[in-house]
């Protein structure tokens, strides 16, 4: 029973990693670089929700979510406009270093504005449901439901709409897609909007369940990255399964290892996947490195 509880906790944590990983892998799929600043979008979503719920505005959390997500999307689009677009003809390393710089800038800006202490929203969602020895809090349940809703929406978007088709085409071959008359600018903006929205929503949910701190972005980014590698870079469904796998593995590890090593799992997954299956567990052809 103890293990079942750990698995359930893992799936819920994993669904959040999946939300982050999906955005990260979409950006990788289209722009071919690892966006380090994706983590800060997570933190930014959570912190701007905090801003809208605290005194000068004091909105209830439900209403604060919309403007918080909007803020994060703006930052995501600005990132693209000011930094990544001008560099799009540079090497992948240039983009990676620029995104590391951007991540450092944003993280410190958050710390500048909110301090580095642990903060939390004033919401009480600890009430839970019990089935025998298994306990699921209401918060965890809403995390899971939100993740399912968002990922279903993504599935619908990718498979049933023209925009989704265009997105997949651009991810496959940007030049060719442009030649075929697909509006690249619009598709690129869509990718950033989706990635930022998913990151912000996940960040707010995670902050409701635990707490806010400036480092939350980096930590979750690395887990999301492990999920991306598990699923195969650029593979959206792989990222989903990868996220849940990381969440479950991490929570189960607590039963064996000391809790201080919980984060170790994600790093080990990153190393092992890169070394042995760089194309992800679902790739059947030889992966690109």
């Amino acid at each position, binding site marked *: 029973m103890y293990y079942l509880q750990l698995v359930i906790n893992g799936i819920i944590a994993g669904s959040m990693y999946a939300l982050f990983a999906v955005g990260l892998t979409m950006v990788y799929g289209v722009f071919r670089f690892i966006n380090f600043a994706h983590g800060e979008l997570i933190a930014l979503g959570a912190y701007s929700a905090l801003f809208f719920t605290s005194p000068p505005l004091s909105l209830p959390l439900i209403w604060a979510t919309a403007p918080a997500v909007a803020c994060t999307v703006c930052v995501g689009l600005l990132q693209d406009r000011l930094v990544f677009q001008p560099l799009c003809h540079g090497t992948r390393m*240039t983009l990676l*270093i620029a995104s*590391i710089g951007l991540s450092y*800038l944003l993280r*410190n800006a958050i710390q*500048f504005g909110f301090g580095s202490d642990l903060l939390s929203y004033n919401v009480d969602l600890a009430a839970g449901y019990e089935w025998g020895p298994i306990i699921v809090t209401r918060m965890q349940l809403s995390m899971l439901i939100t993740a399912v809703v968002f990922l279903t929406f993504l599935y619908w978007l990718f498979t049933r709409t023209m925009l989704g088709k265009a997105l997949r085409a651009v991810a496959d071959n940007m030049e060719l897609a442009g030649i075929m008359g697909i509006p690249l600018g619009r598709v690129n903006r869509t990718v950033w909007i989706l990635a930022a929205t998913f990151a912000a929503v996940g960040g707010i949910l995670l902050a409701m369940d635990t707490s806010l701190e400036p480092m939350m972005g980096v930590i979750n980014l690395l887990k999301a990255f492990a999920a991306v590698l598990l699923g195969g870079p650029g593979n959206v469904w792989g990222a989903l399964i990868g996220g849940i796998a990381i969440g479950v593995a991490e929570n189960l590890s607590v039963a064996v290892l000391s809790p*201080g090593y919980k*984060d170790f799992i994600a790093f080990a997954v990153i190393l092992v996947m890169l*070394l042995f299956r760089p194309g992800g567990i679902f790739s059947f052809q030889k992966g690109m490195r």
Partner: protein
Amino acid sequence: MDYLLHIAISTLIYAIFAMSLNLELGYAGLYNFGHIAFFGIGAYTSALMAVGGLPIPLGITSAMALAGLIGAGLAFTVLRLTGDYFGIATLAFGEMMRLLFLNERWLTKGPMGIPGIPRPTLLGGMPADLLQYLMFTVACTILVFLILHRLETSPFGRALKVVREDEFVAQAFGKNLLSLKMRCIVVGSVIAGLAGALWAHYMTYISPNDFTLQGTIIVLLCVVLGGKGSPSGPLLGTCVVVLLQESLRFLPIPTDFGRHVAPLQGMVFGLMLVLLMLRRPQGLIAELHGGRGA
């Protein structure tokens, strides 16, 4: 005066560290984002041996040896990756090492860190004061600079540059890629270990918080700002970064603003990295092309 000495010593130690990263990043094009781990390994090895009562020169030598050994192990495992994947794998390695420092309490005392690391003693048995320690660091820096300069202008250094520019060409010339990169990482790790050991004996206190991702980002900035692939670039870059860091301290700011200074520094450094990539990716001192030795 002590303050100036402090700045000089930490600049030099960071310069040694930056030079070791430059060998990997600038010459061989290996973007090692976990380099801080070797700084940490050096610092912990030397500190633990010195606290345990062993002579400091032995500690520093073993710090370098262990860093080199672990560097060889890391190189052996991750060298088949290239470009950004190599970067991410080394980043994961760096964070894993930090978690080890944090959790292996029996060895590293965990988050409490190791206090009371002795300074090196002079021949007379007196612990070195700041000025003498500065001399020692200057000597180390010059030595490292000369060794690296020698390496970088040697056939080995030129081969590394060819590897960086085009691996197929290097292979066509009969160069053993794996062995070249491996030696490069081992040398880089040994020097980073030396920098870490110097750091530990200078600060007399270390904790896992000294070896985080932040350190990696700062030293990356030092190398990229100064100019990767140029021998004196990292020296200049480190001087600029430390000067900036220290001058922000002297801004006329109200005292209750004090807690904002560190994030402000971070914002400036992050912005510098972004602007550098946008405006001058080659850094302040651009690498010479087609000069002597090319």
